[in-house]
């Protein structure tokens, strides 16, 4: 299941960013995911305003030394994982 590049992901109800021991975490029912580097950059942009394609483009700029195709694949994989956890809704 791959997210549509034109859809706009946002955090599902009951999912929000939090902080613990100076580390960003994604809080959700019965779970918490540690976020660092790229994962935090992705989740920060799941605000209902960025499309999946915009998130990809922006991260390709931030991580300009990485292979752009690899950045895209990683982002799509991570969004699919968050969707499976029910941490995201797509508008």
């Amino acid at each position, binding site marked *: *299941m791959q997210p549509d590049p034109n859809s706009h992901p946002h955090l*599902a*109800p*009951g*999912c*929000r960013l*939090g*902080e*613990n*021991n100076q580390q960003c*975490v994604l*809080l*959700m*029912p*019965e779970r*918490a995911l540690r976020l660092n580097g790229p994962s935090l950059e992705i989740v920060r942009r799941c605000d209902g305003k960025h499309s999946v394609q915009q998130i990809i483009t922006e991260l390709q700029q931030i991580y300009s030394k990485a292979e752009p195709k690899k950045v895209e694949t990683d982002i799509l994989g991570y969004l699919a994982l968050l*969707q*499976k*956890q*029910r941490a995201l809704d797509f508008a």
Partner: protein
Amino acid sequence: MSNEITNPLALIAELTHRCPLHCVYCSNPLELQSRANELDTQAWLRVFQQAADFGVLQADFTGGEPLARTDIPDLVRAARTAGLYVNLITSGLPLDEPKLDALLVAGLDHLQLSFQGAREEIAAEISGTKSHAQKLRVLEWLKSRRVAVTLNFVIHQRNLDQLAEMLAIAESSSATRVEFAHVQYYGWAFANRELLLPTPEQLAASIAFFKRAQERLSGKIRVEYVVPDYYAKYPKPCMGGWGRKLMLITPSGEALPCHAAKIIPGLKFENVKDRSLREIWEISEAFQKFRGEAWMQEPCKTCDRRALDFGGCRCQALLLAGDPAATDPVCTLAPTRERVDAILAALHKTPEPKTLTTPAWLYRPNPAT
């Protein structure tokens, strides 16, 4: 495995033992605490602040029925303000729309609604109360409100034929998560075990059902299930390991490593009225007793799985092997596994339950005031 002490991730706040339901598998101890002994609002506020400062991420408000406390919106607000993710585990019975809205305004993140079945009749038999219709009303109210919703169905011999109806209730609700929890056998459930344990055929059918549901609903609803320990090959990593991830506070303020720990003889529990959470977690005798591996017996001591399941459940070891430091008897490597097999074998010889008469349930009462 490292023996380094890390902070707990979740605080289970057993706010009260009062409850309008009398479920025959209640996870509360057989000896219930009275309202007079409950921690007051200020004491809980202190606990939530200490927990957040200590690095705890989530607070699970449970009971009894946590909504039996009238200060519940204040407790939710305080825990949320302290920085915790606030989860309410409720029967939904005391709820109405204004109360629900007050909880959401206070900052409730996640509401977990418990179900005793898919139909009024079985739910009333199991909980000793008429409660099912109210739960369905709560689900309707939740549809128009922004909060994470989990439905929790406790399943056993008597309601396993209703799985499809249970899942249909979840699918027609706003839940993003549904838990199917086979009963585990401690406390009240231990007393009612013979009436609750599923047959191997029922268990296998249920697992096949959950796997199909997970596949079909992937990305829509997270379907999670727990199998009964008695049928497992290896024990569960109970509480994620003793004193590793979770801390439970009883209504009167005692800090326990798990729901049932008070049944273990000789353990002394500290109270949050006397000591800080950090102190209790790091140095109290009860939290150190089965932390790490030094307490383990064979076969756990030299087993490759000891860092995966931490020897299983200490309370189950006490209940079935008579020794809380023994390998969890549900483990197929345990010397006492034959006791579990004997319980399961006896079950198969029991005649079909007579549906014309109500079984001789032992109901969980309300605590004395």
